[in-house]
């Protein structure tokens, strides 16, 4: 903890305040001021220039009636759930690596896991975009070659989706009904290097006595996981979860790159952040976009508050 300080000494140490000045200035100008400006401008019809027209709560009223905006929340809800599920492979990988006998192999796998991460995210994204291509993409090629395509067509017939057809290349990013599945599938097998390393570190801090005790009790490997490992890495998981949810709620870069600023055909891939971007930088309605941003902000803040209040982890 930082040492308490008497007022007299504090006065003597006044120069210390200078240390914080640059940080305050930067954060003030680039974080706080824009936030305040967003709140201010959400009451105006503003197209980004110097002219603005005060319209009070009109932007907010419009937002409440904006179908696309509320649809985007539905999309993001689906994405959050799927992203949470996508945490599993990382945990699985961490556990498996942790349980290996040889140290050398552990290290090698760690390197292997980090490898995909050092390739810039954009490149990975674009490569996946290429995978989704109907005529030349790897995904369709793979499905055709392994006969999974035929299975999908058969399944389609049974369930009546009208999406997978014999002989017609699957347009992952072109068929409105497939857009959300594409956003979920992307990044298979969903191993996040940072996640794996963090869980590994957590696992390694588990003392061996706990394992020995479990062995004595005759625990199977699944039970070891459920009762020993998982609870003890809960803090890391919780941290990942919170960061993941906040990032997913705000994020729209993925959708922008894969689907363009309209959220793809039929606007099925629209997420709140993207709609905000769209309204500002496509329709030129900066004031409205600010209002949308505020809705989003309040939403996320609310979720974080709920998380902090009600989701507690027992040690």
């Amino acid at each position: 903890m930082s040492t308490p300080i008497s007022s007299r000494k504090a006065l003597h140490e006044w120069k210390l305040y200078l240390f914080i000045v640059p940080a305050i200035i930067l954060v003030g100008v680039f974080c706080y001021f824009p936030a305040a400006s967003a709140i201010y401008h959400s009451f105006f019809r503003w197209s980004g220039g110097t002219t603005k027209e005060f319209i009070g709560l009109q932007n907010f009223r419009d937002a409440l009636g904006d179908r696309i905006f509320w649809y985007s929340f539905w999309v993001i809800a689906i994405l959050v759930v799927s992203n949470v599920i996508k945490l599993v492979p990382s945990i699985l990988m961490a556990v498996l690596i942790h349980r290996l006998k040889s140290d050398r192999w552990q290290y090698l796998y760690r390197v292997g896991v980090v490898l995909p991460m050092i390739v810039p995210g954009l490149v990975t994204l674009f490569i996946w975009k290429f995978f989704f291509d109907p005529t030349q993409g790897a995904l369709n090629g793979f499905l055709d070659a392994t006969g999974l395509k035929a299975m999908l067509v058969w399944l389609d017939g049974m369930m009546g989706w009208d999406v997978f057809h014999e002989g017609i290349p699957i347009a992952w990013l072109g068929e409105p009904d497939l857009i959300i599945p594409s956003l979920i599938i992307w990044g298979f097998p969903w191993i996040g290097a940072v996640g794996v390393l963090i869980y590994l570190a957590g696992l390694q801090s588990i003392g061996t006595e706990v394992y020995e005790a479990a062995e004595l009790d005759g625990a199977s490997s699944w039970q070891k996981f459920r009762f020993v490992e998982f609870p003890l890495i809960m803090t890391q998981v919780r941290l990942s979860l919170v960061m993941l949810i906040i990032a997913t709620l705000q994020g729209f870069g993925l959708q922008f790159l894969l689907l363009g600023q309209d959220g793809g055909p039929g606007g099925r891939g629209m997420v709140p952040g993207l709609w905000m971007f769209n309204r500002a930088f496509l329709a030129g309605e900066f004031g409205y976009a600010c209002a949308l941003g505020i809705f989003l902000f309040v939403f996320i803040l609310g979720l974080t508050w709920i998380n902090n209040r009600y989701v507690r982890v027992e040690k």
Partner: protein
Amino acid sequence: MREKIFNGIGIGLLALCFVVALTRIVLMNKGRTDDGRKQITLRLAHWQLENGPREAFEEMAKAYMKLNPHIRIEQIAIPERIYPNWLITQLVGETAPDLIEIGIGMTDELLARYFVPITPLVNQPNPHNRGTPLEKTPLRETFFDGMEGGYNQNLFEYYTAPISGVTIRMYYNLELLEAITGSRTLPRTYEELVSLCEKTRAYAEENQAPIVPIAGSRYNGPMLMNLLFSSQTQKLSERIVPPGLLEADPITAAGAYLRDQWDVETPEVRSGLELMRDVGQYMQPGFIQLMRDDATLLFVQKRAVMICSGSWDATSIRLQSGFDLGVGRIPFPSRDNPKYGKYTEGGLSEAGTNAGLGFGLTRNGPHQKEALDFLLFLASQRANQIWTDVSGWIPSVIGTRAGKEVEPFLPQAEGYLRGLQITIGGGFADTTRVFNTNFHLLVSPLGGVDAFTNAIRGQYPETLVSDLHRYVRTQRTLVQRGDTQLGALSWMASRQGENRILQQRFDTFLQADSFNQQQFYRARLLVEQEKSPQP
């Protein structure tokens, strides 16, 4: 420790890169701040990433830079997909290039606020045409369409001097054509097209080759289909268009629908839909999902005999295909066609084609005079000649010679007026959307014309009315804006009675404003009638 050495190398490399990169940036800035008399940089922005335009702009820029050594022209090519975003960001952020291509993402608001109209210049000759036959011709008349392509009807101003134009053509793989039919003659009527398609299918079957007759995509497919549809509604249009108008403008078409003069079941319309479906069968399955490049790819890979696209694709397709390329007009059904002949007058004329691809002058640019001069240069005959020679695209200025490869693309006047479109067109967004969302029903093997019309029939009157509402709102704003201008002009004219130019301007405005008012009242009448239908 080895690790420390490694880390050291890593950081060292990074530091080295940093220094190199920083030096580069500093040097770059140095070059750029030599402004004023020494070196002026003009920036030109556009979205034409196809093969041809970028090279042509380079050449035109070089020619201009030779005349003006102190000016440097820089081209900025932005992908179509992000062009609208980019446009707003640049205009609002006031970092916009001096000349921006007008089209994608542009609205009247943006145009009025951020661009400088060039109307004062249109009645004078283009100084850069000195030494050519066009030396004394007013700028407006140096273009094949009278510079209509540069005129904005709503704002009553000219904003661009267009340098090209667009026509739709059918591209053919001549080698494949020869293999299939034994000759290189291109089909001229729809009947001949069908025959070619059938022969292609037979050929593909015999030789086990994956060849489709027409390469389609969500882009190329509808392009062809909409044109063919218009051929079926020609006589219908003639019936509903009031005397004095040549084509069914959106209000006329919508009004006629609401007055039950036509609907989706009208024989002509149905015939048009069937024609669309017919031709769609000759495209590869699932074409409606595919993007523009997919169709082009299919064609250049010799897996399709033909593809329908615009003149803008000419150079790209030519460069990518290794084979002899044939170009022909769209084969429309002739009057003798047993199925489609009775409702059609004949092939569509291209006489109404407007010039396109023009650059607007941004208002806050640092070098207005120089940018305007360059704009005029681009519109000159000399520059236009360079344009068509290097890009392979259509020229817009009268008197330019079209190269052998550009010739087939020049707009040809023979033909008849187009019939009305089922999507009404002209900004009827909701109606178009209904059409697009249900389009797959029309073309997919499992769907059909009935499935399509059943889906549309219920929604059409509503969307027409909502679009009309929007139209009324827009027109009202336009008329109000026009009235303000008229008022100001009239007041100015009254103080400067002898000013002929002012008088001319006032007259033009009055005409345009009257037209807008007329449209406004017509649309409003239709909307009112819908609310309380006449018995």
